């Protein structure tokens, strides 16, 4: 008799879902780690796991909020600076009963106000805190929005390829259709609107209603930063095609070049004025997991809704309320991130120095990694303009592709497994993010410590050269 939880009788959508970031390579790396092998996990954007230290000030504030009885302790001034004490009191006063009480399901109103003020300072346009919902990480917010949009398999979502596989996973889980638009690797992972138009036309001809478009800016895994003219064109496109725009802007603090600084989709939308600024439905996402904070484990994020009808906002609020509230410490991290220290604050100099040093080092590492990959003859790597990743293209010889096939693996999976076994470097094969047929990549992060980088790139190069030697065909003879 077939039982409810036999493999064949569980939800098909669950079975179809894939999330390579913690997929095959990660599982194999974890096995090897258990066997005692030293693994360098570059599979996920997880800065603190690779030695980045948390910023001091936010940890001081949250520790005080965790243990408010410390505020009455005579030694508190010896344990914490005065501005951390003041800020802890500020956040505790905003809660409904400290860190242990459910907050408003949309997040603590006072923190949402701080987020609104941050957005206004950043973009120059006011925003309504009632349209900002805090979530347990940006991923939960993305899932809530996609769940609201997707009705059935005839609803399509335009997603860049390569993409961060949260999008493909969520679309599959909710039973929708992913409509890919390929980024142009030769044009620095740029967008081509002709390609996008073709994708949308192709989807429509199959009976799919394309409902929304996802942009990831800066890009994950590709790192490209969108220019203001490109964002304008995107918004115009969404307006003409009646698409909601989902702007994943979680890497907005991670910018490693000066030609294309970060500009939010919302700012561009309002710069364009009516009718677009009043019509285009936009949802923007941000997080405390990236930037120079890297506080992934706190699960702090938000989404901001622009031009959504009030009834829709109500429905999204209703679903958020089933989970009661996002975690309160994560909300306080968000408040601290958007409402930073100011010159003159006691902890300001240390905070500035800690922040700057992370960002400067990330910029250096972006270069070290890109250059390191490009120094290999069969590897071409676009520069990491932003975010936390490097996405080199690995040209694999025909015999390697065949060997992969014989091993029952996609060629880039095969390559990455060999890389892992030889060097302990755990990456994610490009197939996990999407790529053009016959073109192979891997994603790694730029997060290993700066002092470890040269050795890591050395180790990679050594492996790559030996892999190429093994599988390349010189002057037509085989190496059987």
């Amino acid at each position, binding site marked *: 008799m077939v039982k409810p939880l036999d493999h064949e009788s569980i939800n098909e959508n669950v079975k179809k879902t894939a999330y390579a970031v913690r997929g095959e390579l990660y599982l194999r790396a974890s096995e090897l780690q258990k066997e005692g092998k030293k693994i360098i996990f570059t599979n996920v954007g997880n800065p603190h796991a690779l030695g980045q230290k948390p910023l001091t000030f936010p940890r001081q504030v949250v*520790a005080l909020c*965790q243990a408010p009885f410390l505020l009455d302790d005579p030694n508190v001034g010896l*344990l914490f600076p005065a501005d951390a004490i003041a800020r802890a009191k500020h956040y505790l006063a905003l809660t409904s009963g400290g860190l242990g*009480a459910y907050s408003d399901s949309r997040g603590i109103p006072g923190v949402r106000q701080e987020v609104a003020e941050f957005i206004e300072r950043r973009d120059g346009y006011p925003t309504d805190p009632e349209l900002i919902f805090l979530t347990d990480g940006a991923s939960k917010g993305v899932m809530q929005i996609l769940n609201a949009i997707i009705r059935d398999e005839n609803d399509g979502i335009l997603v860049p390829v390569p993409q961060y596989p949260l999008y493909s996973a969520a679309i599959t889980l909710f039973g929708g259709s992913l409509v890919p638009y390929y980024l142009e690797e030769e044009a620095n992972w740029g967008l081509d609107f002709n390609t996008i138009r073709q994708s949308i036309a192709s989807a429509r001809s199959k009976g799919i209603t394309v409902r929304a478009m996802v942009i990831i800016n800066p890009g994950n895994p590709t790192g490209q930063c969108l220019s203001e003219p490109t964002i304008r064109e995107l918004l115009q496109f969404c307006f003409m095609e009646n698409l909601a725009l989902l702007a994943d802007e979680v890497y907005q603090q991670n910018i490693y070049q000066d030609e294309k600084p970060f500009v939010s989709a919302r700012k561009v939308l309002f710069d364009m004025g009516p009718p677009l600024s009043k019509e285009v439905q936009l949802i923007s996402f941000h997080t405390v997991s990236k930037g120079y904070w890297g506080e992934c484990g706190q699960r702090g994020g938000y989404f901001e809704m622009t031009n959504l009808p009030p009834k829709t906002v109500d429905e999204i609020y*209703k679903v958020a309320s089933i989970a009661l509230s996002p975690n309160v410490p994560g909300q306080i991290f968000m408040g601290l991130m958007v409402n930073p220290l100011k010159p003159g604050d006691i902890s300001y100099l240390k905070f500035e120095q800690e922040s700057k040093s992370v960002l400067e080092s990330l910029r250096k590492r972006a270069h070290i990694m890109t250059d390191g990959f490009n120094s290999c003859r069969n590897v071409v790597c676009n520069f990491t303009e932003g975010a936390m990743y490097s996405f080199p293209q690995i040209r694999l010889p025909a015999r390697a592709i065949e060997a992969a096939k014989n091993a029952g693996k996609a060629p880039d999976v095969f390559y990455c497994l060999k890389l892992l076994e030889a060097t302990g470097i755990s990456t994610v094969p490009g197939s996990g993010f999407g790529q053009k047929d016959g073109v192979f990549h891997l994603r790694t992060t730029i997060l290993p410590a700066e002092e470890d980088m040269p050795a890591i790139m050395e180790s990679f190069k050594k492996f790559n050269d030996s892999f190429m030697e093994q599988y390349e065909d010189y002057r037509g003879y085989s190496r059987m």
Partner: protein
Amino acid sequence: MGSEMTDAVAIHSINPKVLKCEYAVRGEIDTYTENLEQELQKNPGSLPFDEIIYCSIGNPQALGQQPITFFREVLALCDHPSLLEKSETNTSFSSDSIVRAHQILSSFPGKATGAYSNSQGVKGLRDSIAVGIAARDSFPASSDDIFLTDGATPAVHYIMQLLLRSEADGVLCPAPQYPLYTASITLHGGTHVPYYLDEANGWALEISELKKQLENARTKGIIVRALVVINPNNPTGQVLTEENQKQIAEFCKKEDLVLIADEVYQDNIFAEGKKFNSFKKIFRSMGYGEDIPLVSYHSISKGYYGECGKRGGYMEVTGFSKSVREQICKVVSVNLCSNISGQILTSLVMNPPKSGDASYESYASERDGILKSLARRAKALEDALNNLEGVTCNKAEGSMFLFPQIHLSEKAIKAAKASKMAPDAFYALRLVESTGIVVLPGSGFGQVPGTYHFRCSILPQENKIPAIVSRLAAFHESFMNQYRD
């Protein structure tokens, strides 16, 4: 854009499952109360009361309950480990909290509490929780079976998502129930199959009722996949007897149902002679092993710890095949991991200070103080409710709620209909308008048609209870008089 084009994300074009799902805990009364709060702030003195008293949700620390000191000491040290290097910490923190913080930090690779952890949760913390479960049940638990989640709620969603393939799939849920279950079933496209608890018999769970509802559903073509049992129950508070639990276990085995055991109130039992037995313990004591699927939920939001805002909890998943477990691991990994602070707190709740530990005395005193007070408040409110005309309230056994039945007159029911409200929602609205006391209408939880209830929490501070009781009594008398047939 032509007028015939619909908005991409308009109300008529969003996911119908989202539109259909309901969650009464944060529904109509909640919105109304928000407006009253604003009114009180803007125009103090304009209403017949000067504060809103939330007897609506199980949110203890919002109503003045203090967190357990030891737990918060450990959390502060884990959030800011630099404190461990300062000499003042030795005087400002208990010695065992320092030891525990060191222990917990070493279970994190690189002692990094800001990194995403393993998607099931930090292994060392899960090991600790498994030890706690084994100590509680006297049967072993494996850390591989434990998934740490942002509160128990996301874990419920994962299982519903896994089990529900279409509207033809059903899940048996108690009526009354905590409306997360109906909301989750609807969101995941399945069918809710209610089974009624027997109010006349202390809200007993009768196997005959389960059988009846199961057969009824099957004749309608529904494939019933699972049975949800909430023990202690929310909203009724009843605690199942061991005998009853064994019958339920046998029923699930016989009918091939996954048992979904919501046990978040396991530390909230105040009735004499009633004790918590986990369904896992019951299963194992009956010789039911790894071949019978059981999902057990726990949370840090309730008990005596009441840490709702931290969002910590777990599901213990046993009796599933390896390939299905892999699917669960996969789905859980899409969100990367649950929040670390919640994970740490869950391990503390399952492994509190023990006799002999430096903090034990103060911990036990805090814990017992809270639990005894909850028991007193439950009794005081139960008695008060039973003293109201036309109100019957079953004996308070556990959880954080009471679920009295109100016998409403025809006149009251008519007035409710005229206001387009369910009769119990009408009563609850009038109650909050007159007294500021917020309760939740029974219609949001499920009740036998034609009966009316409301859910009232026992959480307001003890010194407020007399005032609540007298205001409630005054309102009730006036309501009954106004609508006398």
